[in-house]
């Protein structure tokens, strides 16, 4: 029976690179997927593209491709990635340039576009629930609008011989579902198979999070070798049954527990996980250990896809100013609390217009508030004040009021730090499917 092996080479843009090389070298994989595009990243990339038409793709594209292209070519591994971000065509151009330099003659690259629906949405001007107004109310603060594409165009690019497929915004599981649909000839209305394939994509899309990353809790959940965590690969059969595993000898662990945690990661209703390709149902999923670091996953199902696609809208929201300073030794908590009172009063006295402010002591209450955290008195604390302002100049004043605690605050204030950053926020809406028209662009390395 035919089996396809798919590896996951990145769980986010800044992820480790050598586990992907390890997968390509030793994983005997057919496809290597890099999922690198977080919700907000594409908006920031769109801003970069505005400043420079050749920019707007993933900042680690070059590093990843230089490390992985030669070995993938040698081992016959095809690459699928959303590292195109706001500019898949420029990303494909960069891959061409790198492949040319590495002498990978004949390499075929495809870029998938069509997820950028900013102009269409401007014309439609939909109501945006999260901001309580129509899109046009954002005015010139609107940065980007990208629809989540499905597996279709990726599968088509692979069918037409692409060795590397670079996309922008695509539903994460679709990066994995596309090669599976192509290899097994699954139709786009075989909902149960697509549901099971989506389970595979969802389990793999965060890379190390299913092989023991984001899992260890010493004494209860021990994981060996996290410094050289192996990234996952899946072996899938035509009926959708698959096994999650990793390269023998790599760090980490694949167990039913790691798989169950990842199955529910970022899931709301597990009976209706909506993607562009299918409404997947995870409630019948079963995980069984079938060998060391091997977990068999079955039982994913699906219902017909929806008539709309989700769109992420990026907009310039505000500025955040922040300052931090530490207090240690006896009385550290009391001095930290006094310092917070001083900063709060200073911001009032100097009239900094904050829309929202957060004052806390790291080590005391910064993560979970007062109620859950009470009853502990640490040796050291770190004060943190963060506030939302309209303008950069105002945001800078927040950190300054923390920094001036050095000479104006409680005894022993140490290691002050300050920053101000612009916030590009994301809201979402839906768009009718026929309005979104994916396009595939093909390139070939001649050099």
């Amino acid at each position: 029976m035919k089996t396809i092996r798919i590896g996951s080479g990145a769980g986010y843009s800044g992820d480790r690179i050598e586990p992907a090389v390890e997968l390509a070298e030793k994983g005997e994989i057919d496809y290597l997927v890099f999922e690198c595009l977080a919700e907000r990243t594409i908006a920031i990339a769109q801003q970069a593209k505005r400043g420079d038409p050749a920019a707007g793709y993933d900042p680690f594209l070059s590093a990843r491709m230089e490390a992985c292209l030669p070995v993938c070519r040698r081992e016959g591994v095809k690459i699928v990635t959303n590292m195109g971000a706001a500019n898949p065509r420029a990303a494909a151009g960069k891959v061409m340039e790198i492949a040319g330099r590495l002498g990978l003659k004949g390499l075929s690259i495809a870029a998938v576009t069509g997820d950028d629906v900013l102009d269409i949405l401007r014309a439609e001007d939909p109501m945006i629930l999260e901001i309580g107004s129509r899109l046009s109310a954002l005015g010139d603060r609107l940065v980007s609008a990208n629809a989540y594409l499905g597996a279709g165009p990726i599968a088509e690019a692979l069918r037409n011989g692409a060795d590397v497929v670079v996309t922008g915004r695509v539903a994460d599981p679709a990066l994995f579902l596309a090669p599976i649909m192509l290899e097994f000839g699954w139709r786009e209305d075989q909902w149960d198979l697509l549901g099971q394939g989506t389970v595979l994509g969802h389990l793999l899309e965060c890379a190390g999070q299913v092989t023991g990353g984001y899992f260890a809790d010493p004494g209860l959940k021990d994981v060996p070798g996290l410094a050289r965590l192996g990234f996952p690969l899946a072996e899938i059969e035509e009926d959708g049954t698959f096994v999650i595993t990793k390269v023998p000898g790599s760090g980490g662990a694949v167990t039913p527990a790691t798989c169950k945690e990842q199955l529910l990661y970022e899931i709301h209703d597990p009976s209706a996980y909506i993607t562009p390709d299918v409404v997947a149902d995870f409630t019948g999923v079963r995980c069984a250990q079938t060998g060391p670091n091997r977990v068999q996953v079955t039982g994913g199902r699906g219902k017909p896809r929806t008539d709309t696609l989700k769109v992420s809208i990026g907009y310039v929201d505000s500025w955040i100013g922040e300052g931090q300073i530490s207090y240690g030794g006896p009385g550290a908590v009391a001095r930290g609390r006094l310092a917070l009172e001083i900063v709060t009063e200073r911001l009032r006295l100097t009239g900094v217009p904050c829309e929202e402010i957060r004052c806390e002591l790291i080590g005391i209450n910064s993560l979970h508030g007062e109620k859950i955290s009470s009853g502990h008195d640490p040796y050291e604390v770190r004060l943190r004040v963060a506030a939302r302002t309209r303008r950069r100049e105002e945001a800078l004043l927040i950190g300054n009021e923390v920094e001036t605690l050095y000479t104006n605050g409680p005894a022993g204030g140490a290691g002050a730090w300050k920053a101000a950053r612009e916030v590009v926020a994301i809201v979402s809406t839906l768009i009718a499917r026929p309005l979104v028209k994916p396009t595939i662009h093909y390139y070939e390395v001649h050099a």
Partner: protein
Amino acid sequence: MKLRKIAHSRTGDKGNTANIAVIAYRPEDYPLLEQHLTAVRVKEFFSEIVRGEVVRYELPGIGALNFVLHEALSGGVTRTLALDIHGKSLSSAILEMEIPDR
């Protein structure tokens, strides 16, 4: 006993909504979770943090509960003032909850 004794957990985020999966180490402990770890109790435990509704989904097949915490991330990863922008540490907090011994 503390929930940590019989279950493990993972947090994810989507916009201003967090989800916490609570999974029994042993299948036979799942009924205990289902009986005592109600949405009402979880909402009360996180009363300082979660402003919206808490919805619970049950997955007996893998011995897990999935809690969806609405308006839990002070605006979500893109605009929150919180240090933990994703709410990732919430999964550790929930393990402090008390449930009756087996």
